[in-house]
């Protein structure tokens, strides 16, 4: 027997210590999940293909409402908030007396049906009292709160909701209760009540797992509280429901950033087979493939997602671009790791063709627009492939007059000059970079983004190299590499290229073989099977006749050692 009151009076004790979560700054977020609509979808839903098959039977007088409800749940499992809300709205219209479609709207409209570690990370994005953000999350939250109230009201009509449905509704009502001291805990306890009563309830168990996963620390990949419970739950669920799209999706999220990310490989294969027509579903396996060194598979995931997303973009001028920018940025990164620099450049230019709208263009610091993702893609590609002349030509990397992008451009220019031995001009770029960072902190009223702190340190190291102060240079680059590995987990990595590889090559060149070996091993731990680090390590093998030239995808990177 389930009781709504039970949920609403749960203890407010936290399952984790908030201080352990270490919420990141806004600059650490990504656009991996398409944002919810600023307003409720205006058009009716249609039954769509390739959304994944889920059946969640509800109390309804309409088989058509059940069909749209199931579609909404399937779309929710792939975090497609806008379409899920549309499907739930349609179900509600078909059966106005049914409470569960409103439960569905309450689940998705706020755009926070996502892994808990992403919510922890993004929490500082919306401090109390700030005006609504541009994604309309506040508007979505209001819709979610209203829907939860409606679901509660309808569920109290005799015969309109089962006890289990009432508990589902109570759980989301607890999460949407503005007066609750701990909304997350109320939600979790509600889901636990369902799972405890019926371990076969895949839906509740999968929602629970998603809300328990708080990710893994960097650089040691230790689980945060709740993450291993989510992992164990998901391992059991996939055995019970091997074709459930949500379970596979959450395995990918639940295992990413861990020491056992490879365990998600079967889900990376199965999930895009089950959901063939949602860009995020096609994109997500790439996260695991990339961080486990399966670069070809990663590229395939992002390419497939891009094709799918472009088909939606071509069909609808209003389709958003943020998720597309994120997906293609990850594809560019993957091409860089694979050495396909021409392809990386082509993809970057494709994003640069997506001009910013006036609101985006006037934003001082919004690195997530498709255009700025493309700009960063060019920068990443040029630095990764060490195409110093192109960085210095002043045209390949267009000037983008915003402090964050200016700081990155000065960094890249400084690296290029340092590699050419132009010490003083490189130092001038470092000074210009610091000036841009000052402008950024003033404009954003925030600290310097951590990735740019790493960049500043790396540039200092490269200037020391140009000044032939090798010992100090190695120490500085070691420090930069340590800072880079401590960056909060994001996909794709927020730093343009691994500092450890740069350090290893410097050490190798200067005969510091143990430093080089340690750095290459660290780089391979960071990015398994990356060719540059693997080749570098092979050069250090006693069986190898002599160190040879290292190359990146056909672009000669540095002189032989």
């Amino acid at each position, binding site marked *: 027997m389930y009781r709504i009151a039970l949920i609403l009076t749960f203890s407010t004790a936290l399952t984790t210590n908030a201080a352990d979560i270490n919420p990141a700054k806004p600059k650490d977020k990504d656009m991996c999940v398409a*944002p919810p*609509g*600023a*307003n*409720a*979808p*205006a*058009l009716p839903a249609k039954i769509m293909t390739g959304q994944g098959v889920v059946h969640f039977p509800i109390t309804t007088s309409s088989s058509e409402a059940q069909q749209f409800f199931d579609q909404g749940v399937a779309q929710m499992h792939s975090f497609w908030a*806008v379409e899920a809300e549309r499907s739930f709205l349609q179900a509600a219209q078909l059966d106005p007396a049914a409470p569960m479609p409103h439960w569905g709207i309450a689940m998705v409209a706020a755009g926070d049906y996502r892994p808990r570690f992403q919510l922890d990370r993004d929490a500082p994005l919306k401090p109390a009292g700030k005006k609504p953000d*541009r*994604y*309309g999350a506040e508007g979505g939250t209001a819709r979610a709160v209203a829907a939860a109230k409606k679901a509660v009201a309808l569920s109290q009509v005799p015969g309109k909701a089962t006890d289990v449905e009432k508990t589902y509704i109570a759980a989301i009502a607890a999460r949407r209760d503005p007066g609750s001291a701990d909304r997350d805990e109320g939600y979790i306890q509600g889901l636990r009540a369902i799972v405890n009563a019926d371990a076969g309830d895949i839906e509740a168990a999968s929602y629970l797992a998603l809300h328990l996963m708080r990710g893994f620390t960097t650089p040691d990949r230790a689980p945060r509280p709740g993450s291993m419970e989510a992992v164990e739950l998901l391992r059991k669920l996939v055995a019970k429901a091997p074709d459930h799209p949500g379970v596979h999706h959450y395995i990918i999220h639940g295992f990413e950033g861990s020491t056992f990310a490879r365990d998600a490989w079967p889900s990376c294969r199965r999930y895009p087979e089950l959901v063939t027509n949602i860009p995020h579903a096609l994109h997500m396996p790439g996260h695991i493939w990339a961080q486990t060194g399966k670069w070809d598979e990663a590229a395939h995931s992002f390419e497939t997602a891009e094709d799918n997303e472009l088909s939606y973009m071509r069909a*609808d*001028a*209003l*389709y*958003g*671009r*943020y998720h597309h920018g994120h997906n293609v940025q990850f594809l560019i990164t993957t091409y860089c790791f694979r050495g396909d620099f021409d392809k990386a450049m082509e993809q970057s230019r494709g994003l640069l063709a997506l001009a910013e*709208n*006036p*609101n985006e263009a006037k934003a001082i610091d919004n690195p997530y627009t498709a255009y700025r993702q493309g700009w960063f893609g060019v920068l990443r590609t040029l630095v990764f492939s060490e195409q110093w002349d192109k960085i210095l030509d002043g045209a390949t990397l267009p000037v983008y007059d915003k402090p964050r992008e200016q700081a990155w451009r000065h960094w890249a220019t400084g690296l290029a000059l340092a590699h050419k031995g132009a010490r003083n001009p490189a130092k001038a770029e470092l000074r210009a970079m610091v000036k841009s960072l000052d402008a950024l902190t003033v404009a954003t009223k925030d600290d310097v983004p951590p990735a740019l702190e790493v960049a500043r340190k790396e540039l200092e190291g490269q200037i020391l190299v140009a000044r032939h102060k090798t010992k100090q240079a190695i120490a500085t680059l070691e420090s930069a590499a340590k800072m880079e590995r401590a960056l909060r987990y994001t996909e794709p990595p927020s730093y343009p290229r691994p500092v450890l590889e740069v350090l290893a090559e410097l050490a190798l060149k200067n005969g510091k073989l143990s430093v080089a070996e340690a750095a290459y091993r660290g780089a391979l731990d960071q990015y398994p099977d990356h060719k540059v680090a693997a080749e570098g390590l092979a050069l250090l093998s006693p069986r190898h006749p002599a160190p040879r030239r290292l190359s990146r995808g056909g672009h000669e990177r540095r002189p032989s050692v």
Partner: protein
Amino acid sequence: MRLLLAIVAALATTRCAHHYNADGMVMSIDAPRRTIVISHRDIAGYMPAMVMPFRVRHPSELSSLKPGSRVRFQLAVKKRSATISHVAASSSSNSNSPAPLLATKLSIGQSVPDFQLTDQQNLPVRFSSFRSKVVAINFIYTRCPLPDVCPRLCANFARLQKRFAGRDLVLLSISIDPQYDTPEVLAHYGKIWRADPADWHLLTGDSRAIQEIAAHFGMVYWPEEGAMTHNSQTAIVARGGRLAALVDGSAYAVSQLGDLIEEQLAR
């Protein structure tokens, strides 16, 4: 002594004046005569909504106003005269609405360049074919989720269609989402508003062409994560094809827009 008496008399008169705050829409301006015709809302305690001319105390207050401008003002009523002052244009656009690009915007009195689009009956509609009529133009998109914006603009046109039935008025609603708003979609949407395709054309066409047309009237819009960010402009074009008035936003009183049209029809 005479001067002093005059001042005292003036002060006494001023003291006798009654002041009312009011708002309305500018119909026309006669700067040499310091007169402005305003369709105003009810002026509480003084008079109901109507169209009437007002003398402006300071002629400089007229300089920034155009037919279609929405204004707030203070009406001072004395024994033998009434003047208005503190005339200020008020935008009815949402503060988040984009500002029009002034470089491409037509001035009042300029000829509206010709264009051709396709209406809800899938028929070509050429703007210049309405030269003998007064034309009202607004910009909408059918999947606009905000009841206060595009649906409201259409509701206003529906009322205008009813008020001016059988007269020389043509209504044009141009879609800013033409890829989605095909003639079929517009036909369905037109039925919701009971648009008579004989004098209310819902138009679609090439998106670049529409962007150009919209810019003439100060319309700015762009897609943004699932919706269209846009301002709202309603244009009144006089017989002969010259821009007669431009009304900003969607929160105006439809009766005022009707008065503006009435004035053009009477010419």
